[in-house]
């Protein structure tokens, strides 16, 4: 039962990262252009799906609370201020979708909300992962870091890293969904973003070696973990050839594979800890009566239904978006 809920949590988290990853990424790239026609095309590439993508964040939150209450209570309170920024960012970028169309004069306010909100939300998520990898200050199973226990240069570095990663996802999404100059711009951005990401990974690796992070120990103990980075490298090579040949479809899948490989690497190197090196999955799990009650209703029936629904709504809006000029 515990394993089932770990599985649900992992699927929901990965789906959130991939799905909201590309639309937060598009939000950041949106901030890089001034051209109204391009901005419209970029918006319509994510407008139909962003809200559904963000629902997965709520799913992650409530599954965490119901199935692993200690983790929910500890992480959310430990990341109090970052989460506040993330929520404000998500709200503002969410309503910006609807409100920017209704005004001419104040459109720049909503555009700033959209790009800025996406950037901040992505940065905070990366920082959270970084802080977890580095390890939060714990004493006797209780978080003792106070309001700024998450802050470290490494965490900030990871914040920038995820922004690059999401932007790369976003660029690949634009390549897939858009045409003409939006697509071409995205193609030009992909090499820079990939290079930035590579540099980031090297720096992170060096940092982990120098600081002798506990995660490194896990890697040396479990060499079979290297299979995931290997998958990532393979995907990166396929990505490069596809971008080189200007094939619009595959890049997003390749970047998604890289993300999934990174996610699996992290998840397995944390195992069996839920909050690395402080609280294990079994310590965090809710009592059996709670997990069973969740399983027989939402776990067994509704969760598969939600997966199917997500697949359907993505396939309904497949293909390139209509030309931006037609909208006006």
């Amino acid at each position, binding site marked *: 039962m515990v394993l089932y809920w770990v599985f649900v949590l992992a699927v929901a988290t990965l789906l959130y990262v991939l799905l909201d990853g590309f639309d937060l990424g598009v939000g950041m790239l949106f901030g890089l252009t001034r051209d109204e026609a391009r901005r419209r095309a970029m918006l*319509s590439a994510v407008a*139909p799906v*962003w*809200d*559904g993508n*963000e*629902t997965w*964040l*709520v*799913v992650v*939150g*409530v*599954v*965490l*609370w*119901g*199935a692993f*209450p*200690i983790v*929910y*209570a*500890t992480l*959310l*309170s430990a*990341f*109090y201020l970052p*989460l*506040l920024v993330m*929520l*404000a960012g998500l*709200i*503002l970028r*969410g*309503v910006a*979708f*609807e*409100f920017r169309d*209704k005004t001419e004069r104040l459109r720049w306010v909503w555009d700033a909300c959209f790009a800025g909100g996406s950037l901040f939300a992505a940065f905070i998520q990366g920082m959270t992962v970084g802080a977890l990898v580095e390890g939060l200050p714990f004493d006797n199973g209780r*978080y*003792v870091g*106070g*309001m700024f226990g998450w802050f470290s240069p490494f965490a900030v570095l990871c914040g920038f890293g995820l922004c690059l990663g999401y932007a790369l996802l976003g660029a690949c999404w634009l390549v897939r969904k858009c045409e003409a100059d939006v697509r071409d711009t995205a193609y030009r951005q992909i090499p820079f973003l990939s290079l930035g990401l590579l540099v980031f990974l090297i720096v992170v690796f060096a940092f982990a070696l120098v600081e002798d992070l506990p995660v490194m120990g896990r890697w040396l103990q479990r060499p079979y973990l290297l299979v995931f980075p290997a998958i990532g490298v393979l995907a990166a090579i396929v990505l490069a050839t596809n971008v080189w040949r200007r094939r619009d479809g595959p890049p997003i899948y390749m970047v998604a594979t890289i993300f999934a490989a990174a996610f699996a690497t992290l998840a397995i190197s944390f195992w069996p800890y839920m909050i690395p090196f402080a609280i294990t999955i079994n310590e965090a799990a*809710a*009592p059996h*009566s*709670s997990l069973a*009650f*969740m399983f027989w*209703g*939402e776990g067994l029936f*509704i969760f598969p*239904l*939600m997966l199917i*629904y997500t697949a359907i*709504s993505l396939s*309904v*809006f497949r293909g390139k*978006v*209509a030309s931006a000029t037609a*909208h006006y």
Partner: protein
Amino acid sequence: MHLTALLLSRLQFAFTISFHIIFPSFSIGIAAWLTVVEALYLATGRPAYRQVFEFWLKIFGVVFGLGVVSGIVMAFQFGTNWSELSRVSGPIQGVLLSYETFTAFALEASFFGILLFGRSRVAPWFYLFSTAMVALGTSFSAFWIMINNSWMQSPVGYVVENGTYVPTDWAAIVFSPVVWVRFPHMLLASYLTGAFCVAATGAWYLLRGEFTTEGRIMLRMGLYLAAILVPVQLFFGHLTGDYVHDRQPIKFAAIEGRWHDEQPASEVLIGLPDPASETDRYAISIPILGSLIGSMSFDSKEVGLADFPPQDRPPVAIPFFSFRIMVGCGLVMLLLAWVGSYLNFRQRLERNRLLLWLTFLSFPLPFIAILTGWFTAEVGRQPWTVYGVLRTADAVTPFLTTRAASISLLVFCAVYSFIFVFGTYYVHRLLRDGPVGPLVLPPSAAIPNRPMSVVTKVLAPSPQPFAAGE
């Protein structure tokens, strides 16, 4: 009053949840109303019903969207500010809220899309079915939330193990008698919100002499529905009072403003509760009525606040006054609904501009009643978060600083005011423009998970008229 992280967290929770509840209570009511109108359209084929349906669907889209956005914050706020509560009660409250998310997601997300864009693609009976499913989804959402809150008011079906609450009897939690009194109370409140908003809009159009066919439908149906529902609601309100009387005697005494045991008890209609002297100043009270309301008898003994130590009492004035405001709103709504329905039945309502004005101005009443009702329930439960088990002071995140809590409160106030102003402005514009325009407006880029997009096309001014005007 000294500002502490605890007090700021309480203010923040009160602010964000009060902001949030406005939208779901409205959308639950409107979803049910849409189902009724669509059924009438199917039965009669009158185009006016269809106009009314399309019109309220647009408003539903905006309000639903604001409810979703403000609801995301609620899913995180338990963990950020109330980490002790989430840690010990997660095995029960977390599970209930996860059911809320899953069921609402499944039903609303699946059928909302059909509601907005599927009219031409599905059979009429299936379209009606989809409307009903969306209404059911919003009600399900309320159902789980009410189970969750009722458990906090009257915790059952659990044992304490290693400092956490372990559920032992889910049937007792879900089918607690408290749930089955409070859930209908909330559901009826939402329906009444819908009824009065619809009636007020109808009255507005009749006063302006525009859209009179649609306005007449809205006014008549809203008032008739309210005339039936308000008495039922008063009855469920009374049942809710009974559970408070039996299970939360301190809250009951605070609501009644009763400081000392009385036999038979009188009922304080109005007064000013004074904790220092433990009396109500300037009180107007009726003898014996207190026993009658509390225990349905003429000579029962009713307990007073002085039986309990001061640290176990809630701040008396808030539940005392908010309860009276709620009941006051309820009685005014009853009067309006009955007089309006009677006049309408005699075909005299439309000539009575005074009553039309009163109906038009009545739309805030259900919202005020819902908010003050929740103030009564939640503030009256203090100083407990989980009644009798976990004190609010022990539920808050232990290391939360006053500075961090002030920042978050300010940020939420600013962001919420910002989106509330814009949201209200757009709803007002939709209401003012009235049920006009072509019937089916499926914007090409709009989708189920993005309800607000249904209005985009209608509102976005095309650039040509601007150019022509300049």
